[in-house]
């Protein structure tokens, strides 16, 4: 099992560390030649989605990544990564996402909640976070809500979270994603 971690900008090392704890091999994707390696899944980390989108385009990664996901490559996007999966970006998940949905940094917060298919009492770290405004097809399923807003969803082998499981010691979200890849 080998997981690609998009390493253009943001908190990608944190994901690599979780995978390492779980005994899963990973590699960084910084340009097209990295992407050509064999992989069983892809993680899209947190960071700034505007930066990551621009770099995906400039480095000619946008179309190859989109195509692989459409062809069934399992993918896990957190925060900015969730935005990348949404309508108007990679657009592989049928979700409409509101960026900076909780406002500026003073609106960042912690919560604990249930994530369907994953478990109860999952610690959630929201940092200038987005949420899912709308699910656009019945292929996509909401997995979690916080304060009445959807903060996690799954569509086939695509998993998205508005929060940052990679910043906590609870690795259930990652383990769930690893299950999806096998």
């Amino acid at each position, binding site marked *: 099992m080998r997981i690609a971690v998009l390493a253009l900008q*943001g*908190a990608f090392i944190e994901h690599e560390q979780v995978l390492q704890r779980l005994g899963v091999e990973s590699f960084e994707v910084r340009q097209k030649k990295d992407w050509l390696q064999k992989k069983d899944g892809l993680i899209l980390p947190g960071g700034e989605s505007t930066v990551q989108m*621009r770099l995906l385009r*400039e480095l000619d990664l946008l179309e190859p990544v989109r195509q692989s996901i459409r062809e069934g490559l399992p993918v896990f996007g957190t925060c900015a990564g969730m935005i990348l999966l949404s309508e108007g970006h990679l657009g592989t998940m049928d979700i409409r996402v509101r*960026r900076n949905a909780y406002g500026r*940094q003073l609106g960042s*917060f912690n919560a604990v909640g249930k994530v369907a298919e994953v478990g109860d009492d999952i610690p959630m770290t929201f940092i200038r976070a987005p949420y899912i405004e709308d699910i656009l097809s019945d292929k996509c399923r909401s997995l979690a809500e916080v304060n009445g807003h959807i903060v996690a969803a799954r569509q086939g082998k695509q998993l998205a979270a508005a929060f940052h499981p990679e910043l906590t010691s609870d690795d259930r979200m990652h383990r769930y994603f690893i299950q999806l890849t096998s």
Partner: protein
Amino acid sequence: METNRQDLNRQLAQMLKGGVIMDVTTPEQARIAEAAGACAVMALERIPADIRAAGGVSRMSDPKMIRGIQEAVSIPVMAKCRIGHIAEAQILEAIEIDYIDESEVLSPADNIYHIDKTKFKVPFVCGAKNLGEALRRIAEGATMIRTKGEPGTGDVVQAVSHMRLMQSEIRRLVGMSEDELYEAAKQLQAPYELVRYVHENGKLPVVNFAAGGVATPADAALMMQLGAEGVFVGSGIFKSGNPAKRAAAIVQAVTNYKDAKLLAELSEDLGEAMVGINEHEIELLMAERGK
């Protein structure tokens, strides 16, 4: 679950890693920076090079001007307050700035005390030119560190020496035996707990960016290779011939900082670089402010 501001603020800095934070003075420049791939912008009335040229007392920017920039972009907006100026920091918190830079680029308001940053909800980044300064700022509540460099010069030499010094001091701590750490803390004039953290983890407990004098994609790649987790570019962009192109090139250089072939392409046709002034030509060493 209780919200831990200190952790959330450190974590916002983690999200900025691998990115470029650009100084901007107008909403128009902020939009150029965002489109070029800045992961955040620093809103200020005058970029450091012009602060140097103008002389006199340099203060926090007009909140109205900062608000204009907040409205223009969707990425985090930072702003500077003077070292020790508690009230300026409170004003920046009141307008919900995403990060305050308690900065030596402005004229210090207090020659002894820095702001007690633990009293604020909003995060702070502070400059440091060695490990002791970095750990003192973290003890005061800074959740992100940057090298001081020598701002507004277009000369990267100071940022390089600050980053190199910090990294070598970190390596020295890592190699120490536990009973040597107490003396090390005394010499560094930093709290023992933070010294111990560095000894055990081989890094600062917060994100560490490079700043001061970065003007080219090669400068940015150099700082990343020396251990910076991201880069601030102040005067280097909007004092150059083609800001949009240079900014985009620096953003790419930070992502692929080890790929010399790509760096060569990125360095082509960027137009005129910031003119720059050498270290020995400088009358005012901003890095000596606030230790």
